């Protein structure tokens, strides 16, 4: 099996309900399923929630894990656990999976854009780069991909400054930036770093890299297919980044923390994301990129199976980590498979529990990264990519292990 070249992470910040996504319980009481149904997919026997009709049409492209489980009910700790495979503490702050994969893959990556790109905002609340430090920091696009002109802060000049005006600026800058340490000075290295970084930045903003973010190069039809909203257009940018070769792309989709009026929120959020991710999978497939690209989607946990109908929740769901779902596709992962199962109310995994490190370990493995190897770093730290002895639970039913 050839290792995946790129990863697209779709992070459902806040924790999406597993019942209302990939683990519907149509036979359970309304207190659990809200009176909503399941629909069948194009894979016989595989059902998902009725609010995900587009994904139902292409279930052969992805697999579902219905027995994700851990025991952290707070957003930050659960996010850290789902992103690093470790619990906080021990005087060490570990980098998230995006930082690890991009740092390892940057050696073989030839593009001008940073190897780790986040659309459009960071998760926040914890430092994704951990002990790697600022050098591993992702490019966070900011901006609104759904706007007529999607401007990534810093990649292209601001509106109103023409390429010629930029050239004029650079030529004046060359005249004015004259502070220069003596060649044998202790400052020579810093000055050289400043200049090299500047040359690299100029190359990025004037070359093809900047075009990756220019959605006007896509057809109107293609933009419509992804959905004309931030989520949809972010996933379209993600596909362009995959084509460009960026090793790790995260699309943070916030808004799943639906303590109150859950069903209203969920319906709206599902509609956008259903269309966007189904289009992404089919688009990658048709471009021949799905085999080399892992797409995964999860939040930090699921939501309470039982609905809180009374005020102040008015039909809300709380945090729930004991059982939740995740989706994984492409890059060596088989499609059309359901891993694990939950009980009648989706409260506990019935069998095949999958811990965060099992899930992450499988993604690492499909990227050709040994989760038990020492994490590359300049600080002399001898720590493995994932905690030692966490190999047993990896999703080997979904991928063929390379020799």
């Amino acid at each position: 099996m050839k290792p995946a070249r790129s990863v697209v992470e779709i992070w459902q910040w806040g924790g999406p309900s597993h019942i209302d996504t990939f683990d519907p319980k149509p036979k359970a009481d309304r207190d659990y399923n809200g009176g909503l149904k399941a629909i069948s997919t194009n894979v016989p026997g595989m059902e998902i929630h009725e609010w995900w009709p587009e994904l139902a049409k292409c279930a052969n492209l992805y697999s579902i894990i219905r027995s994700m489980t851990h025991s952290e009910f707070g957003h930050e700790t659960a996010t850290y656990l789902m992103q690093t495979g470790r619990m906080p503490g021990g005087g060490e702050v570990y980098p998230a999976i995006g930082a690890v994969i991009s740092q390892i893959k940057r050696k073989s990556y030839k593009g001008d854009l940073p190897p780790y790109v986040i659309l459009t905002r960071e998760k926040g609340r914890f430092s994704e780069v951990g002990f790697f430090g600022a050098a591993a920091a992702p490019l966070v696009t900011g901006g609104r991909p759904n706007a007529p002109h999607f401007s990534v802060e810093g990649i292209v000049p601001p509106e109103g400054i023409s390429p010629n005006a930029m050239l004029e600026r650079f030529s004046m800058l060359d005249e004015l930036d004259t502070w220069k340490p003596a060649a044998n000075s202790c400052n020579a290295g810093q000055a050289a770093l400043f200049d090299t970084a500047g040359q690299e930045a100029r190359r990025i903003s004037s070359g093809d890299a900047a075009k990756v973010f220019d959605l006007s190069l896509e057809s109107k039809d293609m933009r419509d297919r992804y959905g004309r909203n931030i989520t949809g257009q972010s996933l379209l940018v993600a596909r362009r980044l995959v084509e460009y070769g960026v090793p790790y792309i995260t699309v943070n989709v916030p808004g799943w923390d639906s303590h109150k009026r859950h069903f209203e929120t969920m319906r709206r959020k599902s509609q956008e994301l259903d269309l966007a991710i189904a289009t992404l999978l089919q688009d990658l497939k048709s471009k021949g990129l799905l085999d080399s690209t892992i797409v995964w989607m999860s939040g930090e946990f699921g939501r309470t199976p039982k609905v809180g109908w009374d005020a102040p929740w008015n039909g809300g769901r709380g945090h729930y980590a004991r059982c939740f779902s995740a989706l994984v596709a492409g890059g060596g992962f088989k499609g059309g498979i359901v891993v694990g199962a939950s009980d009648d109310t989706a409260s506990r995994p019935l069998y095949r529990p999958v811990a965060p490190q099992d899930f992450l370990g499988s993604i690492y493995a499909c990227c050709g990264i040994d989760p038990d190897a020492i994490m590359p770093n300049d600080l002399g730290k001898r720590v493995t990519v994932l905690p030692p002895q966490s190999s047993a639970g990896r999703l080997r039913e979904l991928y063929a292990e390379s020799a």
Partner: protein
Amino acid sequence: MDTNLTRRAFFGGTMAWTVWPKSVFGALQQPGERQQHPQASIWEKPDGSATDSVMVRRLYLDLAGRIPTGDEARTYVHDSDGKKFETLVDVLLSSQDFANYWTMRFCDILRVKSEFPINLWPNAVYVYHARIRNFVERNEAWDAFGRTLLTAQGSDFRDAEANFFRATDMRTPEGWAEATAQTFLGIPPYKLEPALKKKIASFFSGVKIKETREWKEEIVYVDGIDKRGELCDLLFGGQRTDVALAFENTIRHWIFGPGSTAVKPPAGELRLKDMLRNIVLSPEYARGSITGGFPVRRLDAEVLDDAICTLSDSSRDYQSPAPEPFTFLPPKRATVCVEDGSITNGFLTLFGRPARDTGLPEERGQDVTAKQRLYLFNSGKLHQQLGRIVAPPGKFSGNKPNPILQMPLPKRIDDLYWRMLAREPTPRERQTILGVWQKRGGGKKRNVRPFELLRDVAWCIVNTKEFIFRT
């Protein structure tokens, strides 16, 4: 007392200061061979010492955590008093800016942040920050302050020092041993000998933390015999050589970078202002950075942000949506003054503001990266700010025209240089800028305005090494 706890056995071993990334600061060098530089005289005198313009900017950045205003720079440079540098040192050391900036530095190493993985939570952050600011502003001795931290107990809301025991992601005797070794001996956890860690941890064996019925209030207390005073006697009693060396190195490295390590511990008391005063009045500090070997440092993320905001009379709104209830900082709050390491933004992350997760010096990124330069080249936000630097809207009042806009172009160029670089432009720089003006048809074509030219000049200055570095 265990007789094995001799100073050497207890605190011996290498200090941690080798962990700084080499690329941030090169090794200090002695003034060496002079090299010809076409414009060196702006920055350096023939003897290799720095000019007044360099010194005034350097001192403001190091002591006050900000660049001097145009007026402050002009006044200093044109002052003929032979004691003007000493005077300025004392003025700055007693300023609020000094207290703000150096509090930020100490909050970095003491991990003052609300959220993950430290989880001090907002109330405790503000109480602890205020206490650290008192230490800085009142020039408390470091060892006396250390003793209040290490022996603290009580509520995190009322007994600020007790937060020393909460501001770590490992609230156990081992975790506190690591925090102690790192803060007072300069030994990072990954270099701390297990035996030493165990010994220090033994002094914390009875320390516990319990919750109260008040939301996020916690009480630090000692169950059994409190042995922490003994630890303080070991650390701070007698010669306290290791603590003194570590403290001086902390300060020296913030000023000179890790190439500079004190050979012998400082004489006298360990007081921040006194130590800084000695450092900035030393001949070492007066050297130039072209041939003189004074090491440059990229402006801290917070300081750079404040510089651009102040120059452009703009500000950022700081708020935190987590935890509830939301935190909103007052508008126009300088970034250096933001108490909570959890309240941040993309700019600060990009320019290496430390996450305050570990408190280690290497958490602060001070390298220049391509991503940073992309921001400085192309950012839309910066573009707006540059426009405001050239024509500060705050200067308009009533129907009066902005006085800056009334100045003739050469004066406006001078004004920009003083405000941004604490010096006037050289004849060559003036010539370059006016050359561009003429080439564009300035003064002839009606649609060619000084505003765009000056905005381009401001863009250039922001992108020079002289602006980005403390030289």
